[in-house]
C-alpha cells in the first residue's frame, strides 16, 4: 500500500533487471471501502475511453484497466511515474488521491506481474478461487486490444495471466468446496447421491433458513421438492418458489418414507423426527441412503435416528459448520499450490521478457556481421573472375559458416545474460560492436497495434 501522501506519487518506476516494465496502481476490497472503490471505479462503458485517454496523457507504451466491483487497477507498460497515473486517475474519476492514498497499492516489474497472476487465479478475490475474475481480466484485455492500448509486453503478460487462471482452476481444487450452509447442504447431498436429479427432498418448515437451503437444492436440480409445515399456507408459499408440493405435518411419516434428503428447519421444544417415527418411515427400506439436515435450534431430529442401523446421515448446524471450516482449510491448502503455480509462471514470463529484451541486440549483431561479410565477399569476388558459380557458392557458404560459428558463443552468452537480467554485459556488447543503444524490445509473434494513439 502507498502509505504516504503526495511525496511518493512522483516515484519513478525502476527498470528491473528482469526487463519487466509493467506497473500496476490500484485498490481492492481489502485496501479500500466500498465508498472509496465506488469513487475510483470506471463504469463499464467508460473503460475503453479511459484506456485511450490514459495512454495519450502519460508516457506509456501500453495501458490496461481492470475495473470490477471489488477492484480497480490500472496496468501500465512504461516509464511514467505513479504521480502521473494518479493525477490522470483523479481527473477521470471522483477519486481523491491525497485523501485515499492508504487505499492504494502500487507494484512494479515482477511484483506487478505476480499481482496480476494472483488476481487471475482468484487468489486475491473476496471468495478465494472464484472464477468470475478470470472473465473480467479477459474482458479488460480485450478492451485494451480493441483500443490499441495493449503493448507487446502487456499482451504477453495478460496472455500468461489467463493461462495462470486456467491452470490454477484445472490443477487445483481452489474453487471447489462450499463455504455457506446452503451450498454445503448441496455439496453433502452430492457426495452421497452423486447426481441430485431424481431425488426427493422433503423440507420441514417454511422459514427463512429452510428457504435458503431449499433454493440451493432446487438450483442444483433435485427431482422433487415437498414442503411440510404446520401452517399449510406458508408451505404453499415456499413450495411455489421452487415448483414443489406442499403438505401439513400430519403427513410427515409418508413424506419421510419417500425422502432421499430431508431439510428440517422448524422451532419446537421436542424433536420432530423421533426414533419411532424414523423406524416407522424407513421400515422395509433400511439400506437406502438418506441425508437429513437438521437446521433447527433446538434440534428437531432425535440423536438415535442416525445410530439406529439405517443408512441415514444426520447433520446438524454444528456439523455443517465443521464441514465449512474443513472446506476453508482445503481451499487454503489448494491456495498454497496455486501460489506455486503463480510463482512458476512469473519466472516463465520473466525469462520470456528477458529473452525479448536481447532479441533485437542479437539481430543487430548478426545483421552487422552479415553486412560486413557480404561487403568483403563482394570485393573479393570482384577480383576472382575466374571462379565459376559453384566455387563462388562454396566461398559464400564458408564465410557464412565462419560468421555463424564466430557469433555462436556471444549469442549464447547474450541469451544467458538476458535470462539472469545482466543488462550491464548486454550494454557492453552493444558498445563493443557499436550497436545502436536505443534498441526496442518487440516480442516475437505479438502485435503492437498500428493504430495505437501514441
Amino acid at each position, binding site marked *: 500500500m502507498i502509505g504516504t501522501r503526495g511525496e511518493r506519487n512522483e516515484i519513478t518506476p525502476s527498470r528491473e533487471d528482469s526487463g519487466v516494465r509493467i506497473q500496476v496502481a490500484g485498490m481492492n476490497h481489502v485496501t479500500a471501502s466500498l465508498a472509496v472503490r465506488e469513487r475510483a471505479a470506471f463504469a463499464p462503458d467508460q473503460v475503453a475511453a479511459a484506456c485511450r485517454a490514459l495512454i495519450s496523457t502519460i508516457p506509456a507504451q501500453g495501458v490496461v484497466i481492470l475495473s470490477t466491483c471489488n477492484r480497480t487497477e490500472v496496468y501500465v507498460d512504461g516509464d511514467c511515474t505513479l504521480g502521473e497515473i494518479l493525477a490522470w486517475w483523479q481527473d477521470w474519476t471522483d477519486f481523491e488521491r491525497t485523501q485515499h492514498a492508504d487505499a492504494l497499492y502500487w507494484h512494479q516489474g515482477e511484483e506487478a506481474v505476480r499481482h496480476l497472476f494472483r488476481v487471475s487465479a482468484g487468489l486475491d478475490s473476496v471468495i478465494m478461487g472464484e472464477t468470475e475474475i478470470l472473465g473480467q481480466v479477459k474482458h479488460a484485455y480485450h478492451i485494451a486490444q480493441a483500443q490499441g492500448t495493449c503493448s507487446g509486453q502487456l499482451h504477453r503478460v495478460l496472455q500468461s495471466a489467463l493461462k495462470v487462471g486456467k491452470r490454477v482452476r484445472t*490443477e*487445483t*481444487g481452489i474453487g471447489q*468446496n462450499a463455504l455457506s450452509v446452503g451450498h454445503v447442504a448441496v455439496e*453433502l447431498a*452430492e*457426495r*452421497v*447421491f*452423486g447426481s441430485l436429479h431424481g431425488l426427493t427432498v422433503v423440507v420441514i418448515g417454511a422459514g427463512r433458513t429452510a428457504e435458503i437451503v431449499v433454493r440451493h437444492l432446487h438450483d442444483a436440480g433435485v427431482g422433487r421438492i415437498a414442503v411440510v409445515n404446520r401452517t399449510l399456507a406458508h408451505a404453499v408459499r415456499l413450495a411455489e418458489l421452487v415448483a414443489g408440493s406442499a403438505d401439513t405435518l400430519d403427513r410427515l411419516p409418508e413424506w419421510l418414507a419417500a425422502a432421499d434428503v430431508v431439510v428440517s428447519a422448524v422451532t419446537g421444544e421436542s424433536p420432530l423426527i423421533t426414533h419411532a417415527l424414523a423406524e416407522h418411515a424407513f421400515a*422395509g*427400506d*433400511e*439400506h*437406502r*441412503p438418506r441425508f437429513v439436515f437438521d437446521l433447527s435450534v433446538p434440534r428437531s431430529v432425535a440423536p438415535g435416528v*442416525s445410530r439406529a442401523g439405517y*443408512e441415514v*446421515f444426520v*447433520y446438524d448446524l454444528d*456439523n455443517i459448520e*465443521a*464441514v465449512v471450516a*474443513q472446506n476453508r482449510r*482445503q481451499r487454503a491448502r489448494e491456495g498454497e*499450490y496455486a501460489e506455486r503455480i503463480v510463482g512458476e509462471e512469473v519466472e516463465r514470463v520473466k525469462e520470456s521478457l528477458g529473452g525479448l529484451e536481447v532479441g533485437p541486440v542479437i539481430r543487430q549483431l548478426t545483421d552487422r556481421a552479415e553486412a560486413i561479410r557480404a561487403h568483403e565477399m563482394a570485393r573479393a569476388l570482384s577480383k576472382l573472375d575466374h571462379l565459376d558459380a559453384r566455387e563462388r557458392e562454396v566461398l559464400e557458404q564458408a564465410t557464412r559458416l565462419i560468421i555463424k560459428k564466430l557469433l555462436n558463443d556471444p549469442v549464447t552468452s547474450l541469451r544467458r545474460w538476458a535470462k539472469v537480467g545482466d543488462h550491464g554485459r548486454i550494454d557492453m556488447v552493444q558498445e563493443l560492436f557499436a550497436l545502436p543503444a536505443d534498441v526496442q524490445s518487440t516480442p516475437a509473434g505479438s502485435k503492437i497495434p498500428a493504430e495505437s494513439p501514441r
Partner: protein
Amino acid sequence: MLKALSLAAYVAAAVVAVWALYLPQRGLWARRALAAGWMVQSWWLVRFGQQLGGLPVSTLPEWLATVAWLVAGCSWLAMSYGRRYRAMGGFLLPVAVVLWAVDLGLLPRSRPGAEHLLHGGWLLVHVGSATAAVVVFLLAAVVGLMYTEKERELRLKSVEVFYYRLPALQEMDRLSAVLAAGGLLLWLLAIGAGWIVSLSRSGTVSIFNAGALWALVTTCAYVAYLAMRQFAGWRGRRAAVLLMTLFVVVAVNFVTIGRH
C-alpha cells in the same frame, strides 16, 4: 533386474498415489512411476512368455505376476482416465505391490518348461476368463473399500480426505455391483470352459473335488450378493463389506486350490 526395477517403480507409485489422496497434484508423479514400472513389467512378461513358449499363467507364481500386471494396468487407467476415480490408484496400487512382491519371492521356483504350457483354446479361455474375473472381483472389493472409508468419514462427520477425493457413495455402490456382476459373468465363462476342457480330457465332469467345490461356493456367494441387492434391497455399507468378504473367498480359492 527387470522384476526388481518394476517393483521399485510400483512401490514409488503406490507411495505417491497414497500421498496424492492428500495432495492430488502429486498424482502425475504416481502415474509416471506406474507407467514406467508397468512398461518394465510388460517387457519382462513378454520375455518370460517367450521363454515359456506361452502365456505365463500356468503356475501360481506366473499367474500372480500376470494378475499384478493387470491390477497395475487397471490402476493406471483409473488414475489417467477415470475422472472421479483418480484416487483409486491409492487403493489399488498397494495391492499390485503386495502381489508382485509376494510373487518375486515365489518366482525363482518356477522354471520355464514344457509342463507349463497351456494347450488348447478352451483351456486358455478357462484360465484367461478366470484371471479376468478375479481382477474384476478385486476391483469390486476395492470400490467397496473406498465406499466404506468415505461412508465412515461422513458418518463420523469428520470429513478429511476421502470425502473430497472419492466419488459419491451411491455411484461407488452402483459401480461395485456392476463390477461384481461383470466378474460373475467372466467367472461363469471360466467354469463353462473348464467343464469343456475336463470333458475333452477325461470324458467326465466332477464337482467333487476341492477346486470345483470352491468354484461353486464362489459362484453361489456372488449370486447371493446380487440377489440380496436386487430382492432384499441391500445397499451401502453392508453390501460393500460383503463384497470385500467375498473377495477373500475368491483369493483363498485361487491361492490354495486354484491350480488344478
